[in-house]
């Protein structure tokens, strides 16, 4: 190894070491944020539920008293007015059963004689049979209409039935706090969803803060220090921050300036000494000293900006996806309320149309987005997309007909397409050659973090404030996303300066890029996996899941929580898979395994009998699809980037991206329509299984395409 290579290797190792330390710090901060959030939420929820239970128990007892009074009056009539002895009453069991069936919050009913022997009972727990005397009538106490006491975990109210002033029988009505606890416990799922959403938001913002304020500046400072340690004092850091790094940077720049001034003085002194020499030999020696010094250290006063990273786009993109995903769990049901009395197509197709056209709008926007990105830059395109999305959400809120709804959703789709392309271009521009899959995971991760937060919160909002109002919340969130994007990416000129996009004259235009890309069997293989993956997403998750779960009687909140699982899996799994894929470079293996898993998972609906019911089967399918997509997403994106990067001299990067996205979105567009047509013909599980079968078929075709590419270019595929 030569000296310079050795130096580079040393530099690299130091860089990795410091970067690992910073990442460790980031992880610790993340754990801190997560733990504080989790513990505080758990404590608060626990305290809340305790208080609620205390407050609800007396109310539950009042119900028991109401029931007890009514029953006592009936029994008194039979015993006193009709003269039937309590032990000879007929049909008491049946009567008690009827009362308990109609009042599920009452746990048991029992009629006991004067010595607390049970004569008739319904649902009385075995262990309480001998214990009812613990709450028996106290003859020393003044006569009362009823009394209440605790027996085990039950609150038991006793109602005496007197005959000629003597206690003849006592009716016991028991209630349990378990019932209240069970009812309150349903809020726990919602609270868990809120905790997860809070954690994801914390993660996203902390990641942005760390990246913007600590990781990126320190990485840049490190470069300057590395260069300086080799005598290369050519850069200073441009960073304005009123924190520890800002102070350090200003001291560093001052030191560099001072050193440079000393260097200029040094040069001046040597020049003076050399010029004043009469003896050419001495003059030559001084000149040599100067040259030797210049070899050891050199200066310039360039101001280096902190480099932009792919992760910078993550938070605004996440917020936008969050806003879009709010309506995901109830959108098909929302569309249902707009369908005219005499629809043009079948009910299922009418529901799928706004979703399909929304996807088609994304598809069309992708067509123009490539060129628009070149003209406007990704930051301006992002803001343009946000404007479209905002107007679309507001329009959806105000729309009162099916046609209006479609139009506004299409505008939303255009916004989505523009934003998606802007982000993708941003990542492609600022990703490093060595961490493409990881950079992609920053982008893919933001989408799926949105998938975690959106459906669950959207479902809750829909249940609490109404489905239409949720679109207004989406509009507000999109504005926040725009503001964050403006703050983070507003340095538009710098964006184009960092990596200038080469002039289009040297690149293929028109249909030429299409021919080039589709001439590559690996690209075809990538598309063959991407299209069904997208189709699964839009057909299964966006269309079938809300309708099927609603059909099974689940609320918006529950549907949202189940859909959230998909996002949770992706958020947790994507970075791990991305690193693993980058490490092993087996991108194709990951995509094939992931697509197969998602395809097979869709057969879960057919086996609902073995899986413990239809709802559980849907849940298992969501988990399988989520895990499968987790394996597919980042590696697929990395393969695409590899291919596009390989053709960078022939095709513009944004153009190549938009071609890939254009083809890839076909899956999103056809998904809901395909699902609607399938549901028309068969049951929900049948439709799911058919889509699963199509995915498996696509996987087989991908394998054929990849093998063709391998045979054509020996060793060309690193799968």
């Amino acid at each position: 190894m030569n000296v310079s290579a050795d130096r580079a290797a040393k530099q690299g190792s130091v860089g990795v070491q410091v970067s690992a330390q910073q990442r460790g710090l980031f992880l610790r901060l993340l754990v801190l944020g997560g733990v504080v959030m989790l513990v505080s939420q758990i404590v608060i929820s626990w305290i809340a539920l305790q208080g609620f239970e205390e407050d609800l128990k007396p109310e539950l007892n009042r119900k028991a008293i109401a029931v007890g009074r009514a029953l006592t009056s009936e029994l008194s009539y039979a015993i006193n007015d009709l003269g039937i002895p309590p032990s000879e009453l007929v049909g008491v069991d049946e009567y008690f059963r009827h009362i308990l069936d109609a009042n599920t919050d009452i746990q048991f009913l029992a009629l006991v004689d004067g010595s607390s022997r049970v004569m008739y009972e319904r649902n009385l727990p075995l262990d309480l049979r001998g214990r009812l005397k613990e709450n028996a009538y106290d003859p020393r106490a003044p006569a009362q209409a009823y009394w209440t006491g605790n027996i085990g975990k039950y609150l038991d109210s006793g109602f005496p039935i007197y005959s000629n002033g003597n206690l003849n029988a006592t009716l016991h009505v028991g209630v349990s706090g378990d019932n209240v606890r069970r009812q309150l416990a349903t809020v726990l799922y919602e609270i868990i969803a809120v905790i997860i959403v809070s954690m994801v938001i914390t993660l996203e913002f902390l990641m942005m803060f760390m990246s913007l304020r600590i990781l990126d500046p320190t990485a840049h400072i490190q470069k300057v220090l590395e260069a300086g340690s080799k005598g290369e004092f050519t850069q200073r850091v441009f960073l304005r921050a009123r924190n520890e790094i800002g102070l350090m940077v200003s001291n560093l720049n001052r030191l560099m300036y001072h050193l440079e001034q000393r260097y200029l003085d040094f040069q001046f002194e040597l020049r003076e000494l050399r010029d004043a020499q009469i003896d050419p030999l001495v003059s030559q020696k001084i000149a040599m000293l100067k040259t030797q010094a210049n070899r050891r250290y050199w200066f310039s006063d360039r101001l280096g900006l902190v480099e932009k990273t792919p992760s910078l786009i993550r938070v605004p993109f996440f917020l936008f996806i969050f806003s879009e995903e709010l309506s995901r769990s109830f959108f098909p049901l929302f569309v249902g309320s707009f369908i005219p009395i005499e629809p043009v197509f079948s009910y299922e197709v009418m529901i799928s149309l706004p979703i399909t056209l929304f996807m088609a709008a994304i598809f069309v926007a992708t067509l123009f987005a490539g060129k628009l990105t070149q003209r406007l830059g990704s930051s301006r395109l992002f803001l343009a997309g946000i404007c479209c999305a905002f107007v679309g959400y507001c329009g959806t809120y105000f729309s009162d007909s099916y046609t209006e709804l479609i139009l506004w959703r299409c505008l939303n789709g255009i916004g989505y397409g523009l934003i998606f392309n802007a982000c993708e271009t941003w990542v492609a521009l600022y990703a490093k050659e060595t961490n493409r899959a990881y950079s992609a995971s920053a982008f893919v991760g933001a989408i799926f973090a949105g998938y975690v937060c959106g459906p669950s919160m959207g479902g809750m909002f829909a249940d609490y404030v109404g489905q239409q109002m949720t679109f207004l919340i989406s509009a507000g969130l999109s504005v926040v996303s725009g503001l964050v994007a403006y703050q983070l990416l507003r340095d538009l000129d710098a964006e184009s300066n960092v990596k200038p996009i080469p002039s289009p004259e040297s690149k293929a235009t028109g249909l030429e890029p299409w021919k080039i890309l589709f001439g590559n069997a690996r690209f075809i293989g990538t598309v063959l996996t991407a299209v069904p993956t997208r189709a699964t997403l839009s057909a299964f998750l966006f269309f079938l899941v809300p309708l099927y779960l609603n059909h099974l009687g689940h609320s918006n909140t529950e549907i949202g929580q189940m859909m959230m699982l998909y996002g949770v899996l992706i958020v947790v799994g994507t970075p791990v898979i991305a690193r693993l894929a980058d490490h092993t470079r087996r991108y194709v293996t990951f995509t094939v395994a992931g697509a197969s898993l998602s395809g097979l998972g869709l057969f879960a609906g057919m086996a609902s009998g073995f899986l413990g019911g239809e709802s559980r089967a849907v849940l298992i399918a969501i988990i399988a699809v989520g895990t499968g997509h987790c394996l597919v997403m980042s590696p697929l994106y990395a393969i695409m980037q590899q291919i596009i990067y390989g053709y960078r001299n022939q095709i513009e990067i944004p153009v190549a991206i938009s071609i890939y996205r254009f083809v890839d979105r076909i899956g999103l567009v056809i998904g809901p329509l395909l699902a609607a047509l399938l549901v028309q013909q068969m049951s929900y599980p049948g439709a799911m299984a058919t889509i699963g079968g199509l995915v498996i078929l696509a996987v087989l075709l991908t394998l054929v395409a990849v093998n063709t590419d391998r045979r054509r270019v020996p060793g060309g595929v690193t799968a």
Partner: protein
Amino acid sequence: MFFGFAFRVALLLVPILILGIVTTSALSVHKFGQTFSQLLTSRFEFVTSEIRNDVENQMDLGLVLENLEITEVLETYALDDRQILSIEVFDEFGVVLYSSDSSSLGDLVPEEWISTWRLNSNNASWSTQDHDAVVVGTSIRNNLGQHVGSLVLRYSREFLDQRIEEQARRLFAVNSIAAGISIIIAFLGAMFLLNRTCRELKLMGQIMDNISTAKQKDVTVLKGADIKHPIYRRFVAAVLATYKDMDTTVDRARELDEGKGT
């Protein structure tokens, strides 16, 4: 104004923390209200069903709805429970036939009650909201199975709202304390975690300042300094070496100039 990293990180956590706590609290209070309301409604549904049984028993004996003797029953139930505002029986046209409050006899019930009753006449009970009360109703059938009217019980929302408000106030107090403690923990935790990094950055800045202001220009500047990152040490060493090298080079040039050097 100077804000350190720890402060900024903690500041970042605060709004998210508060947002999470507020959302959780709102959901909890909403659930409490829902459960409490369900319990109340269930109790009053039982009461109405008991009265309806009385009414239908009398009708089974051949009496028509207009000629029943139930006013006393209605008054007894209403007096027994402070939360009950009134219990009324109205016919199919919405005219109040019997009431625990005699002043409303002959009045017409709100249109909404009639439509809700008609819509839910086959259900065991129905309920709707008045501005100050919750209305629980049950349909009355004659012995031919025809819906001839409805029995309604109005109970005060004030009681329900009051309980919800009390719980909300209690939760607000508890959550404020919890949020305060969480914020303090977040601040202290962030300070603890970032302390080392911040200290090292500060120290490094100080050393650089010392060198540039010529307070210290030799390797002693690094002695005892708790700097773990090798790159910081190497940079400072390189800067000091450069200063020294320039001084040495100038000295040698001077020596050459003075004819001392070779």
